């Protein structure tokens, strides 16, 4: 497929990018069958332009139930960028005449996305202590976007999220008493819908941020964006799996919750600590259910890979983290 794809991409890029003469260094970065990420350079007499294509190939147009869809992602990134949220520039949204499926092309932002490198490499030692507070400020920027200007997104309440996780978990038909304990706790402690719904990024965590030596340069992966309780994002980034071993620094392994909260409030937001903690429990269970889902896709196809199989064995990490949250032991 590659030659036809490269030719289609060249035709697409030269059509909207004035002066562009072609594309080079096309390389697949990641993704499954239904969603692909490609890196390439737009050849231009004024200097080549680093670019990223995110697309669902032709025939894979329908987004999964939870996903906002690639068109919505592009629109959100544009809105976020315009409002001062660090975002890659969206260069082009694919149209039917491009013949490339659905998706968009964005500028490639230099920096690091690999969480463990951000947490351990010397290059980031000076900026690491600032990242928790920065995360708070960036999240407030996202939550402050005017809902009237956003694409249509699904609305999520705690009760809806509980119902969805319970349905998925029961669908796997494999008993995990700790998951039942968590579902029960979440139902018993449901704080109800947020008083003020906002845009929720939905996957704001270490690993989905491009970080440079001065801080957060871009927020990526808007595919789970929805409308709901802004505290959901503050809880999700604290889920232990996103601390990558730095478990005493809850905010992505960067720093303390209080630092993120301070950054959020300094940027004009209001933090509800009880709700943020509630969403951390929900997020921990959500990641566990996602691990089980990957195991299911390994077993039933189409992605019969070792990696997916092994992620199935990561569900137990969320069980120990749920117990640490809901039934902590002395000395733990």
């Amino acid at each position, binding site marked *: 497929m590659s030659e036809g794809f490269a030719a289609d991409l060249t035709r697409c890029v030269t059509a909207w990018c004035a002066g562009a003469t072609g594309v080079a260094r096309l390389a697949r970065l990641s993704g499954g069958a239904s969603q692909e990420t490609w890196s390439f350079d737009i050849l231009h007499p004024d200097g080549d332009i680093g670019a990223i294509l995110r697309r669902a190939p032709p025939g894979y147009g329908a987004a999964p139930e939870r996903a906002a869809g690639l068109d919505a992602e592009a629109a959100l990134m544009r809105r976020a960028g315009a409002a001062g949220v660090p975002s890659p520039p969206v260069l082009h949204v694919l149209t039917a005449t491009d013949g490339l499926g659905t998706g968009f092309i964005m500028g490639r932002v230099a920096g690091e996305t690999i969480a463990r490198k951000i947490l351990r490499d010397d290059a980031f030692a000076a900026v690491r202590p600032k990242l928790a507070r920065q995360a708070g400020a960036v999240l407030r920027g996202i939550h402050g976007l005017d809902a009237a200007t956003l694409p249509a997104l699904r609305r999520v309440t705690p009760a809806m999220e509980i119902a969805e996780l319970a349905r998925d978990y029961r669908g796997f038909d494999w008993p*995990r*008493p700790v998951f039942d304990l968590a579902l*029960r706790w979440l139902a018993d402690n449901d704080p109800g819908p947020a008083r003020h719904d906002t845009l929720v990024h939905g996957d704001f965590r270490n690993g989905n941020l491009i970080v440079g030596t001065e801080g957060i340069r871009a927020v990526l992966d808007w595919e789970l964006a929805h409308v709901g309780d802004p505290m959901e994002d503050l809880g999700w980034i604290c889920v232990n799996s996103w601390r990558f071993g730095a478990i005493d620094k809850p905010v992505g392994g960067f720093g303390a919750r209080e630092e993120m909260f301070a950054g959020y409030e300094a940027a004009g937001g209001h933090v509800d600590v009880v709700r943020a903690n509630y969403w951390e429990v929900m997020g921990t269970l959500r990641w566990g259910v996602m691990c089980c889902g990957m195991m299911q896709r390994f077993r039933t196809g189409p992605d019969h890979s070792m990696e997916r199989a092994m992620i199935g064995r*990561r569900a137990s990490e969320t*069980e120990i983290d749920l117990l640490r949250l809901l*039934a902590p*032991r002395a000395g733990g």
Partner: protein
Amino acid sequence: MQDEPTPVELLNAVAEFLRNDIAPQISGAAAFKLRVATNAIDLVVRQLELSEPRAADELARLVKLTGESGTLPDLNRKLANAIAAGAIDLRTPGLADHLWQTTMDKLAVDQPNYASYRRELAGEKAST
């Protein structure tokens, strides 16, 4: 009775070959996949070595908690349903201990280097 070498010995020999002889020859995506593969073999080895005695303990605890007899999947399902229904909760004597022990046993096989597990293990050692 099957003859020697044991499954654990065979798997360890395969993992050693992949690590010592193959890993140095490859790079990039293939090297990453090989690491996943050797991790999977190591996980299976841990399960073969650890699961049997711990499963017996888990079953004994489940019989006590549910008041019934059955297989591990049966009784885990009964416990899960009882928790979902609110018939058993963290105030039920033995539930928290059971969930902790069972989860620690899972992590010992799945991810013995997971930071939360190591922290809890250190806490257990300090308190005994």
